[in-house]
């Protein structure tokens, strides 16, 4: 069953100047995401990935204004007509910049902010805060100021703040951009746990091809305001011509496969390091290729 259904969605931001033209960003997006699925979205800068994310929790067009056509339906709610505050209990969103989404003086207050807005009982808020911090492994930092956390910890906190609203869908807009490798691993560790243990529906914009190949069920490619292809990551990452056309890079190990195929005429199509290791060991032993 589709949890998110986007049909012919068109969106243009309001003009910057009164006499200007609306800024068209999305040109008829079609996409559907199943319950418990991890869908990754990739695309070059400026193709509308963030705008698409914001349309899934109603901020586009409700908070941004502008012109919207078509439908974005999340868990049966049209995001153009359902109030954002109501959607917030169903759709959690984590933005790219942790600095502008963490505004409370302590970690626990940051996580409690959403449930407090819902007017929940303090005991239930405390329960949600503890649960969300435990899921992201941040219980030890309850009284810490968010500004004293590392980049990876800040994004884990942002995820916890979303989880405390008990959403069914989590949208992550490039949550690892600008993080060091440790921070990236921390964030992906949390996302992996949410997928594996809680079967949460996740939509994530990322340029991290290696990790998308490892974790995502499907990969959607955005290009010039449209979704141009949705497929299993290995099928997309081994399609070199397509990737070149849309200006994206495959995981390095897939590029290695292309180079080996060119060199030896083999037909490797691996996207994960383990797959490459296994295939190369097997073929080296079998004598199909030589070192």
């Amino acid at each position: 069953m589709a949890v998110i259904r986007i049909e012919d969605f068109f969106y243009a931001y309001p003009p910057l100047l009164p006499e200007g033209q609306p800024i068209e960003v999305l040109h008829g997006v079609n996409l559907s995401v199943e319950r418990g699925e991890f869908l990754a979205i990739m695309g070059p800068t400026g193709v509308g990935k963030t705008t698409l994310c914001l349309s899934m929790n109603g901020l586009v067009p409700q908070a941004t204004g502008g012109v919207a056509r078509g439908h974005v339906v999340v868990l049966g709610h049209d995001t153009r007509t359902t109030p954002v505050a109501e959607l917030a209990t169903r759709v959690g969103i984590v933005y790219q910049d942790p600095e502008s989404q963490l505004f409370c003086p302590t970690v626990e207050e940051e996580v409690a902010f959403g449930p407090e807005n819902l007017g929940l009982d303090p005991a239930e808020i405390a329960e949600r805060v503890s649960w969300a911090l435990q899921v992201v492994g941040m219980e030890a930092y309850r009284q810490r100021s968010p500004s004293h956390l590392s980049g990876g910890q800040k994004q884990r906190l942002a995820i916890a703040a979303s989880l405390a609203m008990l959403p069914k869908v989590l949208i992550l807009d490039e949550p690892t951009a600008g993080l060091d490798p440790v921070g990236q691993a921390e964030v992906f560790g949390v996302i992996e746990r949410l997928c594996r243990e809680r079967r949460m529906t996740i939509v994530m914009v990322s340029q991290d091809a290696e990790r998308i190949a490892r974790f995502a069920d499907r990969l959607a490619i955005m290009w010039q305001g449209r979704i141009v292809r949705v497929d299993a990551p290995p099928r997309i990452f081994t399609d070199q011509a397509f990737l070149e056309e849309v200006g994206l890079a495959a995981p390095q190990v897939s590029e290695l496969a292309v180079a080996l195929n060119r060199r030896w005429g083999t037909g490797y199509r691996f996207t994960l390091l383990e797959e490459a290791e296994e295939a190369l060991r097997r073929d080296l032993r079998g004598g199909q290729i030589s070192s």
Partner: protein
Amino acid sequence: MSLLYDLYQPGDSWLHRLDPRVKFIFVLCASLLLLLMRSLWVMLIALVGAQLILLSGGISWRRIGWVWRMTLPTMVLIAVLWVIFYPGEGQALLSWRFLRITPYNIAEGLAVALRIGALAFILFIWLFSTSQSALIRGLVALGLPYTWGLTLAMALRYLPTMAGIFQLISDAQRARALELDQGNPLRRARAHLPIVVAMLITALRTAQNLSLALASRAFGAQRKRTHLHPLHFRPLDGLLLAGILLATAALLWARLALGLGQEPL
């Protein structure tokens, strides 16, 4: 982090446990009395009393010293200027042209200077012992609209962030040969223009992202918000509040009806 951005000193003393509303009302009452009185002795008692409250509340010497460093130059300046520019009554200790120094104007100058120090320390009793969120919750409980409280909390939260961004942009512009420390004040101010423009753009972008983050966490969903740690007004808070109000009323009466603390000496 600088004390300027992070005034609260975490702790579990009687002062920390006191309801933030009681502390706020204490600040208001004490400030009102200090502004109405002129006695050097009253100011001295208030200043010493504030130090004792801070120390008994577990506030570190470092923080108390920080307030002294901030206020002492102003206090000294006020005391000196007062003595010079306000000719005192009574017998002069020194008289030269317009200068007329008397025990009265020395006491008056000292009282005004001590009043500045006492007011500062009384304010910092509240700020050092109350976390930012408790401070805002207290003000909201006293009738401040929540959105105002949140705005205040965010302004405090983003002060160090904005200071960091300012430093970053300044360094980046300096690396491109912008001279910020050269020339007269007007030239220096003009040199800061590119930094101010970049800061404004950054601040606007942050504000926009922040508004999206607030909306996506159901801000404004309910007219009445709840809190993870609601304020609890304990009997001791009630007792202290009654004491503060009674003492304020008594001192006000004594000041207005009996003229207590009306004269510097």
